[in-house]
């Protein structure tokens, strides 16, 4: 867990992939893949730039417990 994308709303525009400073997100043919969730900084660059407001940061249990 780290970046969760609402696939109902996502248009697969790829802005989040472009904005991610860590090469965590990848644009695939039909969706955005969170390929390296364990390397996420939780910075939210993906979220603040999303035109569909469909990205959530969901913290892993290591953070919230």
């Amino acid at each position, binding site marked *: 867990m780290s970046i969760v994308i609402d696939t109902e709303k996502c248009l697969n525009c790829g802005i989040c992939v472009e904005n991610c*400073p860590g090469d965590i997100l990848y644009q695939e043919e039909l969706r955005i893949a969170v390929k390296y969730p364990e390397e996420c900084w939780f910075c939210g660059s993906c979220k603040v730039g999303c035109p569909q407001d469909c990205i959530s940061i969901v913290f892993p249990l290591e953070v919230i417990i």
Partner: protein
Amino acid sequence: MTDKFAREADVAVESDILVIGGGAAGNMAALFAAKEGAKVNLVDKGGIFRSGCGAAGNDHFLAVLETGPDWDTKEAFLKWYNQLTQGMVNPQIVENGYLRNIKFLVNYLEDLGIPMKLDKTKDDYIRTQSFGQPGPYFINFDGKKLNPTIAKEARKEGVHFYKHTAITNLLVKDEQVCGAVGFNFKTGTFYVFKAKAVILATGGACRLYENTTGLAFNTWQSPFNNGAAQAAAFKIGARLANMEVIGFTLVPKNFSAAGLNALVGMGGHLVNALGERIAFKYHPQGEKGPRWALPWAVYWETKEGRGPCYFDLRHLSPEDLHYLKYHLLTVDKVSFIDYLHQKEIDLAKDLLEMQLIEGELPAMAGQVHGIVIDEHFQTDIPGLFAAGGCALAVGSMAGSMCCGKTAGEEAAAFSKGVDGILETDDEIIAGFKEEIYRPLKIKNGIDYRRIEGKMKKIMSSYVGIGRNEKGLVTALESLAKLEKYLAKIQAGNGHELLRCSELKDLLVIAQVIARGALIREESRFGLSHYRGDFPESRETWHKLILQKKTGRETETAFLPIYH
């Protein structure tokens, strides 16, 4: 690995100036070099609009505005900054980089539409005081769009961006810098950037120690800051200063977010498990003391059995709490509010548990580590300039932006005096290329994560808090052995190749930190350099330690402090 990766022909590009790093300092350096008429290329590991520590935002802008009060003057700032850095930063750099630009920059950002005046009723700045300042130097602002705004300005000014590209080596000819090489980790393409001058602007170095939250990339400052500029400069003989003085801060439990400045600036109280306020026990300014004093307090309270420690914000008014949550913490780290929500913390009712980070070389106000530069922001190597968290100048978002501007202007002036671009020998470039792509060719090699993990283990065991001679010698021996394994690390794709490249830099930096820590036979800046065998600060060691590579050896030199 896809078949297409690293199959394209090498690309060579030329410009007057190459800027390495597209965060606070790099974007400003590129923009203002271009305004001076220079042709500028900017290269960054990230995309174009969100890079560096402030990728998603920033909430505090260190500013001297000369509005009247004694503290709001250049003289008062210089005095405070000299105290904060214990004389380790050249005041001429503070003047030429920061003080010369700050008023201009605040107005410039307002003109570009960055909300600087959060007090809407009076159309004025909201300013808060922290970290031992003589007055409220921090403008609270909404910097969510700061990075993309400056990047857009730079693009309008003609700066050409190279994204997703990591720089590995600087190019030198006749003892002058003439470019850099690197690779695009998305396509695999090898790049040769040729330039009359190069500006390093890549920030600090994280991922050096075992992460206290247990998640390797859950660092205070950007985990993608890996000391690339410091390592590249060091490899060609530039001096690095005070690298043993690592940075600590306090972060919410298991979440290494920025936010300490906001918590103390708004009047939060640091308390131990018994509910006692602890900051005044360790520094006369309490929570408003220098940043290093707060981790120092939490460390000793915990050691002596009075941890965990917390921030108590329950005495703040509902308005102040709302302001803290929605105008500061969330602007600095957009996921802060998600953390509070998902961890079910209500700051009006609950204490916020805090913990120490593991130690980083951060880009921040008061940093004393970095690449040595002169007052023109030039390093020891002609043609090589540096600004931002990688350089020994003025850190912080505002400091890095101001210093980036000066570095850009100085490098542009320098490049005008250079007739043509020098050419590095082809075989040297071919050697760098071979080294970059080697992990893709290794079969049955070693997972780079194991080497990075081992490096962190060594650093945390011997080069963290509570250092001594025996441990530091052990660390240096172990790191030297570990370095030999770099020849065997393997990567299966461009992403892994990037991490391999970062690891090589981190190992260079780790050894410089350990060596500096061994040399400095005293303790200074709280936990940042605490030697169990020399637990006090010593006047004979109140000086800068400089390290420089000559051939295979590392030389040490000293500089007196600045008064």
